[in-house]
């Protein structure tokens, strides 16, 4: 824990069951890949916290280091990194994401 921003990330991850680090907001995504994950989560009816990394350059760098993942968006469920856009879409398509949400007691509607 060398980066001071990591504390804030840890806090957001413990305060929210599902967190999406993204470019833009869930209402106004600024990137097609972020928009795609918002769409997946919305289709499933999952309540999630979207965190816009574009408004905070220090967070943008820190989340890549924290996750050891060079791209955005990044989806976390119950503090566990799930993946980026490609992985989330694959998992939603074959039902793995729904299984993960069920296993972690995260409510969803679809």
């Amino acid at each position, binding site marked *: 824990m060398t980066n001071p921003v990591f504390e804030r990330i840890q806090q957001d991850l413990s305060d929210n069951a599902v967190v999406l680090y993204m*470019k833009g907001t869930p209402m106004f995504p600024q*990137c097609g890949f972020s928009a795609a994950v918002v769409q997946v989560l919305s289709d499933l009816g999952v309540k999630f916290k979207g965190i816009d990394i574009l408004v905070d350059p220090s967070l943008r760098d820190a989340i890549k280091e924290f996750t*050891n*993942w*060079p*791209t955005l968006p990044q989806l976390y469920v119950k503090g566990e*990194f799930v*993946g980026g856009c*490609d*992985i989330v879409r694959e998992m939603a398509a074959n039902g793995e994401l729904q299984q993960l949400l069920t296993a972690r007691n995260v409510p969803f509607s679809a």
Partner: protein
Amino acid sequence: MSIRAAIETKLTQALAPTRLAVFDESDRHVGHPGWDPKGETHFCVDIVSPAFAGKSRIERHRMVHTLLDAELKGGVHALALSVKAPGEE
């Protein structure tokens, strides 16, 4: 060497893929953040390699990220991945 050629070379040498296609999709992201008029900013890689067998999705993506670290820290802004082991296609 173009970035696309560098991606192909690095993945081929390290992973001996049975299928590899690298698409430069920069033209589909004109004007988006990270886009550069010089091109070669947005890529899509479709790769099948025995090296991915038994690995999780996250592990597979990290293997590719590590191999392409220089490109990701250079001009490559987006890297969409389809990463599979033989038999999963």
